[in-house]
């Protein structure tokens, strides 16, 4: 016997989500069948609204309901610093830290020719334009991942931005807070020694 069409379609939809295979999708679909109608409605609405009500901020590339986004509109934030991240998710992580009060810029990827991503395929042009237009920005903090591609992207940005007299900084590499030196791998330790600070 085959599954009735609505359930088959739902399973198929769940399977489009990352990390979900046919078994999990089937389980989720049958669970959905048992859920309150109200909850299911809410769920469907949230799904729809992520597509309908969200756009990307025309200034920084963050996702937002209203363009420009909340952070770009907030004039109490430090307008002289821009922190450059790979993905929108990274903004949320940085905001959780509550220590950074400047602005953001989302690249939406890193430079990786193997994956077909060159300088024109990520939001670097919009960053440069932003720096030209907005003379208040004095520092660009590059917070890409500590991978070869993340490093290449950071170096690339530095080459283009530095000649304009804007300071370019990179996040520090080293020991994670609260961890034992004993358990750190050699490369992390070596980076930590290179980037040591005076006390």
């Amino acid at each position, binding site marked *: 016997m085959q599954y009735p069409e609505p359930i088959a379609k739902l399973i198929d939809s769940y399977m489009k989500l990352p990390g979900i295979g046919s078994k999990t999708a089937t389980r989720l679909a049958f669970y959905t069948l048992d859920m309150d109608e109200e909850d299911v409605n809410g769920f469907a609405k949230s799904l729809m609204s992520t597509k309908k009500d969200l756009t990307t901020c025309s200034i920084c590339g963050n996702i937002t309901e209203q363009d420009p986004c909340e952070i770009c509109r907030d004039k109490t934030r430090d307008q002289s610093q821009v922190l450059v991240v790979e993905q929108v998710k990274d903004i949320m992580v940085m905001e959780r830290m509550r220590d950074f009060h400047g602005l953001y810029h989302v690249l939406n990827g890193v430079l990786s*020719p193997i994956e077909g991503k060159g300088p024109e395929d990520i939001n670097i042009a919009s960053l440069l334009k932003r720096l030209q237009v907005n003379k208040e920005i004095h520092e660009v903090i590059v917070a890409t991942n500590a991978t070869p591609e993340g490093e*290449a992207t950071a170096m690339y940005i530095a080459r283009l931005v530095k000649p304009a007299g804007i300071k370019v900084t990179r996040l520090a590499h080293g020991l994670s807070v609260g961890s034992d030196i004993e358990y750190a791998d050699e490369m992390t330790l070596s980076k930590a020694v290179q980037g040591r600070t005076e006390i």
Partner: protein
Amino acid sequence: MYLRDMSLRHFRNYESVDMTFKNGINILLGKNAQGKTSLLEAIYVLALARSHRTSSDRDLINWDATAAQVLGCVQKQSTSVPLELDLGKTGKRAKVNHLEQAKLSQYIGQLNVILFAPEDLSLVKGSPQVRRRFIDMEFGQMNSRYLYNLSQYRTILKQRNRYLKELRNHKQSDLVLLDVLSDQLAAFGAEIIFERLKLLKELEHWAAAVHKEISQGKERLTFKYVNPLEPEQLASTDSIYEGLKALFEQKREKELFQRTTLFGPHRDDLQFFVNDKNVSTFGSQGQQRTAALSVKLAEINLMKEETGEYPVLLLDDVLSELDDSRQTHLLTAIQDKVQTFLTTTSLSGVARQLIHDPKVFHIENGKLLE
């Protein structure tokens, strides 16, 4: 260090086998195609998490199974370390002391092995690729930093080659990114070249001593690292870095034309000289073999120097390829110091009088006959 025991599950033609080894000479005896080399391969895989015979882990898994497992216990001077490697269809998991290691580079180096197979006799005569592979495998085992730099270098090299292609095909046009990639590549390349030069110098010292002995003092073995940089540029990582960057700058047009990176450790070579003559072109077969054997034996000493422990030696059908005097040299060099595994089809070909009390394993069709 020595390998105390090893267990295999669904590895090649071995369904399930547990064996205990001797800290001395272990002989794997059997007819052709019974699984002698597969046992050596298992030890190699346990040490380096990859095979020397195949690049596909799938080949290591028994045809009727979906996963293979290699377990072993390494006895070091004061501690013993259990190692475990699980090979599945989707990847491998490596455990040291029952703890899973996030990075293979943290696993490799726990057990050091040196493999000597008939094809190693072509180390001198073979292509540069063979020698680079040799250098990278051996130095990577001794030095995890070298391994890290190498893997970063390879990633960036792929990116840069792809980018050169795209520039040439006019899919991309930004030369600043090429500069950035050249910069990154030169930085890791410089680390690798510098480390190679340092370790090769030590290896040369040991190899020259062995070679002198085998040739009864008549021959002097020297190495030459072949690289487009000037000798004075090789003095420090900084000067190598500057040198590589300058090359990338000068030869940009050529690289763009050929769509590939033409300079760096992945293009360098190692040459061997006997009495100042290049062995690969002017040496006799015998000299080439002696040089290869000297280099291999030197590795044992170098590894002892670098890691504080003797490695485990794997000899795959090598004794039959060497004449009596070279066999004698090999066996006296390893006797009582180095745990050795050697495969052979018959005991008569082996200079038995030189091997004290070996442990012999009879192998037939993926099983051990006691």
